[in-house]
């Protein structure tokens, strides 16, 4: 397959068929996490701490247990071996002790919303009534929320066994700084001193939530023989299985997890919150147990993306060549250590050729929900700081901000953040597409202003398992272990149909439970269409090989005398051209051969490439109120190859919409007691349809040679540029650099008043 050969080389790739899960979803038949029911099921509820930081002195559950209808009450004491779950690694990384303690607090509660006990009862109303009867004896401790509070001398320390990783020598004192990481090349300080212009500032962003509509929910059943089952939606049910089994000291294969349709995840559903709790309740009650979060619980107890503080300086020479970057940042990671330092550094160093650069990040814990992955973890905050400085340099030099970026953008062969040369990346192509776009070529409207920002996300590959089988009528079943969040079943069907040269409709895709297929990593890191897609193509290749071998045998010709064309085995033997066997004619003859026609492929996909993007944003700022309206928005991105262009465009638009929300109105607000004061969609203001213009998209296709159809991950890149694209537009409107998010009306009004 020649990935370089342009769209018209393909029959199905690049078309826009209806998604196979569409009808179920629009007719309400699709089964999401909260819809699942099991026979004889109990309803659970979780008691959560009202305090942001407290020591648990004791929990008295006796009155709750005595309430009629209550079948089980549990605390951390009911979890097996909670103290000793310390191992890391395996298929599923992450500190299981932290995840276990986040599911149910053991000695201390670390945030308002931290689970301390749970109940299973015959109705949800009874379960909630029982919660009120549990007496938790808490010694309230002083709490910290912001980075400044958490790193202040004498600040209350969340984890007395946490010593900053990455410091030499190892610190003698525990602190709230979990780790530090530096990425550097050359001598940034010396280069900065030589710069003709320098843009610098302190950029601050707040924790923001992924904002999926479907709350976390699951049904769990754990039998006395040690076998268990969980039904839930997630971004990766194999990892739900591995984490839950790890926390519960259960052999992994004794737990079977069945995936349900997912109502949004954006990174937030790559861990467990309820599943281990529901399992322990089920074990104790002897019946299946359902747990579902309410919206306030989702906001208070599931991971938002970290807030951040960036101190950044970027220097350029008089011609607009970027010569130095110095950055130090602090991630506000919530109750347990985060892991976005690398993403923050790579974002700063990866998009432009800056010979001398240094980025150092500090991961800081504080008393709110453990933060978690959100679409391109760590990158949007970092790009906000860097791309704002670049805009400032353009203004200082009187240069077109797009030309400035073109002048400095990385090309294939330039060093990447890992120091390896960049592969077939398409930043220049994106900038050129932006320059040629209708949006960039339309003058800025009277009273409006325009911002532009670029950025990238590294993407990922990783392990996937798929099975493809041909039924006796020639129709094709593709089975993957990758939950479908953004239309991946359609994309898998397209890639299979393209490879097999059969119609899209003759391929059906299902997502198998953990007992039915080998491991697949989460749908995350923009990896699924790339990695799982590659496995599907490979498996289809094996199917073709098998059909060719069988076909040759049936035709009575040599293996070399057949060819695969239009979904059939064609005879090439001299004199017999035109003879062919279709898939049904071969697959229907199972009994003549070694078995059914099927193939399973496992891989650990390598060769993934970063996705670059450029966003253009026009805003109208109401100078009297500070209200910002986004009037036009274009997202340009190198997508490698758009397998199903609708869903690729959807990813570009979705990321832009979320990024606009992050820039303008989203952000956690904490009250004096450290509780989330806006734990609902009314006051946690994600944009609604009427807030946004139609987001225009331009897909740039620089194919990835490591994928049979040229795929690059597309899901995350689109949230990286918007913070700065909007920020640059608003800054130009206000006449003052906007360095604090969100840029809510009152904030902009204040800036206008003080300008």
């Amino acid at each position, binding site marked *: 397959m020649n990935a370089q050969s342009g769209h018209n080389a393909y029959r199905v790739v690049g078309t826009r068929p209806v998604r196979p899960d569409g009808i179920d979803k629009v007719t309400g038949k699709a089964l999401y996490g909260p819809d699942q029911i099991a026979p004889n099921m109990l309803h659970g509820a979780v008691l959560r701490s009202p305090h942001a930081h407290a020591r648990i002195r004791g929990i008295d559950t006796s009155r709750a247990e005595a309430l009629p209808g209550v079948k089980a009450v549990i605390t951390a004491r009911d979890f097996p071996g909670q103290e000793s779950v310390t191992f890391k690694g395996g298929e599923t990384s992450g500190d299981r002790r932290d995840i276990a303690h986040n599911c149910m607090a053991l000695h201390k509660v670390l945030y308002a919303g931290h689970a301390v006990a749970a109940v299973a009862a015959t109705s949800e109303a*009874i379960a909630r009534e029982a919660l009120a009867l549990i007496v938790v004896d808490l010694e309230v401790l002083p709490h910290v929320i912001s980075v400044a509070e958490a790193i202040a001398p004498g600040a209350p320390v969340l984890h007395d066994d946490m010593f900053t990783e990455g410091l030499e020598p190892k610190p003698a004192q525990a602190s709230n700084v979990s780790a530090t990481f530096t990425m550097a090349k050359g001598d940034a300080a010396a280069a900065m001193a030589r710069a003709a212009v320098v843009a610098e500032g302190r950029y601050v962003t707040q924790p923001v939530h992924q904002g999926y509509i479907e709350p976390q929910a699951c049904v769990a059943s754990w039998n006395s023989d040690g076998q268990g089952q969980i039904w839930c939606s997630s971004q990766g049910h194999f990892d739900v299985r591995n984490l839950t089994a790890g926390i519960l000291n259960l052999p992994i294969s004794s737990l079977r997890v069945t995936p349900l349709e997912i109502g949004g995840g954006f990174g937030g559903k790559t861990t467990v919150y309820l599943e281990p709790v529901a399992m322990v309740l089920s074990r104790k009650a002897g019946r299946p147990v359902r747990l579902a979060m309410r919206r306030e619980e989702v906001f208070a107890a599931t991971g938002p993306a970290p807030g951040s503080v960036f101190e950044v300086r970027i220097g350029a020479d008089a011609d607009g060549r970027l010569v130095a970057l110095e950055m130090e940042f602090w991630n506000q990671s919530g109750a347990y250590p985060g892991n976005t330092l690398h993403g923050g550094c790579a974002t700063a160093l990866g998009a432009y050729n800056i010979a001398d650069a240094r980025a150092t990040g500090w991961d800081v814990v504080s008393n709110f929900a453990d933060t978690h992955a959100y679409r391109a973890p760590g990158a949007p905050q970092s790009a906000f700081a860097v791309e704002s400085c670049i805009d400032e340099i353009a203004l200082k030099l009187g240069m077109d901000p797009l030309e400035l970026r073109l002048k400095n953008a990385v090309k294939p062969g330039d060093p990447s953040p890992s120091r390896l040369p960049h592969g077939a990346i398409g930043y220049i192509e994106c900038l050129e597409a932006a320059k040629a776009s209708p949006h960039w070529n339309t003058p800025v409207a009277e009273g409006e202003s325009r911002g532009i920002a670029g950025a990238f996300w590294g993407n990922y590959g990783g392990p996937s398992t798929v099975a493809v089988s041909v039924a006796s009528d020639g129709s094709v079943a593709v089975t993957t272990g990758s939950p479908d969040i953004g239309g991946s079943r359609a994309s898998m069907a397209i890639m299979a149909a393209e490879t097999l040269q059969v119609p899209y409709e003759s391929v059906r895709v299902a997502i198998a439970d953990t007992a039915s297929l080998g491991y697949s990593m989460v749908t995350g890191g923009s990896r699924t269409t790339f990695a799982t897609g590659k496995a599907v193509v490979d498996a289809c290749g094996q199917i073709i090989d098998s059909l060719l071998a069988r076909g040759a045998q049936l035709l009575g010709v040599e293996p070399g005398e057949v060819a695969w064309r239009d979904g059939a085995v064609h005879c090439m033997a001299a004199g017999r051209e035109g003879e062919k066997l279709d898939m049904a004619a071969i697959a229907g003859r199972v009994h003549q051969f070694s078995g059914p026609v099927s193939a399973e492929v496992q891989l650990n996909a390598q060769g993934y490439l970063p996705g670059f993007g450029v966003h253009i944003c026009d805003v109208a700022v109401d100078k009297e109120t500070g209200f910002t309206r986004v009037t036009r928005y274009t997202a340009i991105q190198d997508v490698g190859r758009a397998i199903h262009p609708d869903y690729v465009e959807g990813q570009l638009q979705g990321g832009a919409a979320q990024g606009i929300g992050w820039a*303008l109105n989203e952000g956690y607000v904490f009250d004096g007691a450290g509780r989330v004061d806006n734990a609902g969609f*009314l006051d946690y203001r994600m944009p*609604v*349809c009427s807030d946004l213009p139609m987001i225009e998209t331009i897909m740039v296709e620089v194919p990835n040679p490591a994928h049979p159809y040229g795929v690059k991950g597309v899901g995350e890149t689109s949230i990286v540029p918007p913070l700065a694209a909007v920020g640059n537009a608003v800054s130009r409107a206000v006449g003052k650099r906007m360095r604090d998010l969100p840029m809510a*009306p*009152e904030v902009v*009004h*204040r800036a206008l008043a003080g300008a």
Partner: protein
Amino acid sequence: MSTMTFHAPATVAEACALLAAEPGARVLAGGTDLIVQMRSGRIAPAAVIDLKRIGALSGVREQAGGFVIGAATRCTALKEHAALAAAHPGVVEAANLIGSVQVRNRATVAGNLCNASPAADSVPAMIAAGAVALIAGPQGARELPVEHLPQSPGRTALAPGEFVTAIRLPGKAAHSSDAYQRLTPRTEMDIAIVGVGAAITLAGDGSCAAARIALGAVGPVAVLAEAAGAALVGTRFEAAALDRMAEAVQAVCKPIDDKRGSAAYRTAMAAVLARRVVQIARERAGEA
């Protein structure tokens, strides 16, 4: 376990009797506040009395030169009533800022009023337009100007057993019109940082014959800023008159600092919006 009874009476009298019999009862109109509050655990009424089965309470009627909006009338129905929309565009636009289309297909302006939120959108518009609440109760019917109904956040002047059966608005008057605007960080599905309604009547010479300006979200209840209206009467909306109006608006603002906005910002924005709605109402009145 707490229990709750649900009633769907067919007449006002029946509803009155049910309400009088159960002190813990709540009236249900669209339910877009009530059900949200019940689900969040903030309230747990002993009984819920649905008004939507009382035929007389649904719809807009023109009566005695005015408009009577039944208490169970959904907000979107106000838009569909051409005469009402022509006479009180400000009230109709305020009611149709509430939530989203889905919410407005359930929500009522009487519910908006009786929920007694300081930020209720239709309330300043109704106050400016001179709306009166028609009340039924064990002691018989009475009327109350809308501005006197909310007493404090969540509390109304309704006596036990009383409920609002309708909102009455004056009929269409010559050279008279109104307008409402609110400030929210989002364009929809949001709660006003400040909301301002204005109703203006012009004299034959284009000067201001009457003006009522009402403010939401700048105090515990929506207020009629009488001095602000008075500052315009007799003027031709000259800059100085508008400045006096805006000052009078700010003078009655008693907002709090909260997560939705600081007191200073709310106060400043009340004046900004007041100027805007006065201008719109004046233009509309000129065309009316």
